[in-house]
């Protein structure tokens, strides 16, 4: 197992290393080519979020409808770090990350649930977080319904660079996990938790580890995103459509791979902007139809077309 994992990593080393390098190059150069930096920034953010969803859904089968909860709490951690603790931006990011991890630990009993129960309960959990953060009773901490304003720490270039770094690190993490025993253990758990236990895999601990990693990614993305927005309301960073886009991007590309969510984000977010900027009245309709058709005809996402032919998909 171990040895075979290593050979995987080795035999596909070229392709595996190429992906993060390519992302690094593309998003370092993109601002020079394309003037709307917000679009590039958001594409990265969704790519990272899609990878976060992918870690959980693609590798363990848990669909986190409420993934935006980690994103939102990360953004608020950032806000609290800056407003309450008066930390500099980069240090406040860690507060966002910490908040997300703490919330993930508190919510880890949700992993006892399966399927739809988990999906909808995670949605409920993110609504609970939203309602707590936005409640007037917490105005002295979160500024409640009045929203956060971090304009004094606003620094679009630093937050852009931070997002590039996060994207590259997340991609590397997914590739490493996919090609090591840990990733194989996750796939085994996804297939059959009981058999995984009998194969010696500590199911609960392994799942919880991924859950926390995924939360950490969501929280960091939210923190950097909140920093980049610098003025936001609870409803902005707990917007359910953030979860939904990340899930759809993952599904479209194909979960359980590193390239799937990247592909999904590039194609669909690109489409989102191409249509969104021209005439989006039918946009939600197109998205809905796309989801339905994907589930019916291509449940493994675009990469499954290649996997079916036996190719290694990074």
């Amino acid at each position, binding site marked *: 197992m171990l040895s075979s994992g290593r050979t995987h990593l080795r035999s596909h080393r070229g392709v595996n290393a190429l992906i993060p390098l390519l992302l690094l190059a593309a998003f370092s150069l993109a601002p020079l080519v394309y003037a709307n930096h917000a679009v590039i920034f958001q594409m990265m953010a969704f790519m990272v979020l899609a990878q976060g969803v992918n870690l959980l859904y693609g590798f363990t*089968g848990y*669909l986190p409808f409420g993934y935006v909860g980690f994103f939102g709490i990360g953004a608020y951690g950032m806000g609290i770090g800056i407003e309450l603790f008066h930390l500099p931006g980069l240090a406040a990011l860690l507060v966002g990350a910490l908040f997300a991890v703490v919330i993930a630990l508190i919510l880890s*009993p*949700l*992993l*006892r*649930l*399966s*399927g*739809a*129960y*988990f*999906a*909808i*309960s995670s*949605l*409920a*959990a993110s*609504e*609970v977080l939203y*309602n*707590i953060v936005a*409640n*007037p*009773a917490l105005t002295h901490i979160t500024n409640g319904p009045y929203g956060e304003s971090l304009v004094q720490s606003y620094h679009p270039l630093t937050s852009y660079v931070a997002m590039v770094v996060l994207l590259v690190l997340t991609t590397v993490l997914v590739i490493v996990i996919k090609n090591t025993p840990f990733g194989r253990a996750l796939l085994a758990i996804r297939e059959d*938790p009981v058999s995984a236990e009998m194969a010696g895999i500590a199911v609960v601990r392994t799942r919880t580890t991924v859950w926390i990693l995924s939360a950490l990614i969501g929280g960091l993305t939210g923190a950097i995103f909140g920093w980049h927005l610098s003025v936001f309301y609870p409803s902005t960073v707990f917007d*359910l459509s953030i979860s*939904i886009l990340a*899930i759809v991007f993952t*599904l479209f590309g194909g979960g359980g791979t590193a390239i799937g969510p990247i592909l999904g984000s590039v194609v669909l977010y690109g489409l989102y902007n191409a249509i969104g900027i021209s005439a989006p*009245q*039918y*946009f*939600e*309709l197109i*998205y*809905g*139809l*796309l*989801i*339905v058709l*994907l*589930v*019916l005809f291509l*449940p493994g996402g675009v990469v499954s077309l290649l996997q079916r032919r036996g190719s290694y998909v990074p």
Partner: protein
Amino acid sequence: MLEYSIVAGILFGVFFGFMALGLNLIFGVMQVVNLAHGDFVVLGGYLAVIAYSAGHINPVVSLVGAFVLFFVIAFALYFPVIPRLTRSKDPEMLSLILFFGLSQIIEALDVIGFGNNPRSLPLAIMGAAPWHFLGQSYQMAWVITAIVSLVMIGATYLFLYYTRIGYAARAIMGSREEAAASGLPVAQTSAIIFGVGIGLAAMAGVLSPFMIGSVDPSTGLGLTTIAFAIVVIGSLGNPLGSVLGGLVYGVSVMLMQTYFSSWSDLVPYLLLLIIVLAKPSGLLGKGVRNA
């Protein structure tokens, strides 16, 4: 205030129990979480509003029309979608995602067809005089809505327990394999239950303007979550469970509004989390699988 909150919570909760009934049936029989459930409720609401404003059709009449129309629509929707899902590798997750897509489609069509403005019905249709009970007065619209909801829940109960299709449906809820092995018409029953479930959602939608004030395209997902919470609180596949879940929800919301009003939005979500973590089989139930 306590007394009023409880009585109003019961009226409110009975309606929500009814609203969740269709989701319960479909989930129970097909293991499909209809995430578009709330959107069908909203469609029923639009049907009532338009029937009333265009043709002065009383919502009670619209109830029947809504059921028939949406039964037919759902029945037609069943065959290209559900069997394909049931055969797939992970029916439960994939159906969740697919119906989420359907929910997006319906929401988009609502915007195109009915606009973004909230639509509602005059409460006076249901009688202007309030209902007096234990020295308090309650909106007549709530009372009538609750009564209609109870009647429909009763009818569903009779359908499940005293008809052949109902018997088959309950058998399938128990075990799909066993039901198929003993020669029950699983596919046919599933299609009918799918139609009934969505028909019931649309009926609840006809009543919804009286309970939730108005409907607009974005109302759906919230209703779906509440319905799911109610189904889980009650327990799967049991119409009485839905009533119980609805009552727990209704009374909790009203008590929360009275004593901690700014937190009242938390009710369905907190109830859901508490139930799934503490007693995942629901208050009445058995049988929810854990991972």
